[in-house]
């Protein structure tokens, strides 16, 4: 019974970690980098750019 519970728990953890990896959100500080658009916009794009 314990083993079964453990197995189930492992399965749940494995599946959820796959889910999280796909949807991982990074916390990228904005600083005072050049910015365009409203500061309270619902979506913020942070672009790392190389002009060349």
């Amino acid at each position: 019974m314990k083993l079964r519970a453990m197995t189930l728990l492992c399965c749940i953890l494995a599946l959820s970690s796959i889910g999280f990896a796909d949807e991982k959100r990074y916390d990228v500080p904005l600083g005072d980098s050049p910015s365009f658009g409203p500061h309270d916009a619902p979506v913020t794009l942070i672009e790392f750019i190389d002009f060349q």
Partner: protein
Amino acid sequence: MAAGPVVKKVLAAYSGKLRLVIKNYPYRYRDFSRIAAEASLAARDQGKYWEMHDILITRSPKLDRQNLIAYAQELGLDVKKFTAAIDAQKHKSEIDADIKLAESLDLYNTPTIFINGRKTVGERPFTYYKKIIDEELR
């Protein structure tokens, strides 16, 4: 290379709903990446960041010092001030901080765009960004 035209299209499609923030990630082994980043921030000092940003993207890879000075002239910037800024690497610490941030995030490609923190690597088609943004707006 920057995602220029696609990002522009995205901004136009979601006008008022998006904020775009730019971080510089000039690769060390490229000749003019660094000075182009300096040029963008020197233009920002004179209130013309996005104008210069657009020029740098559309004229790349013509980004040597002489080209950059010509672009500054084209935008009506104070060329003397602009030239002094890029020659002195006035924004070195700001650019270095961006590079350090990029390295801490283990980035290996540009453009890398974080959409509400969700990472997208490389130049992707409009529909790819649209899907993520629509999810974020839901």
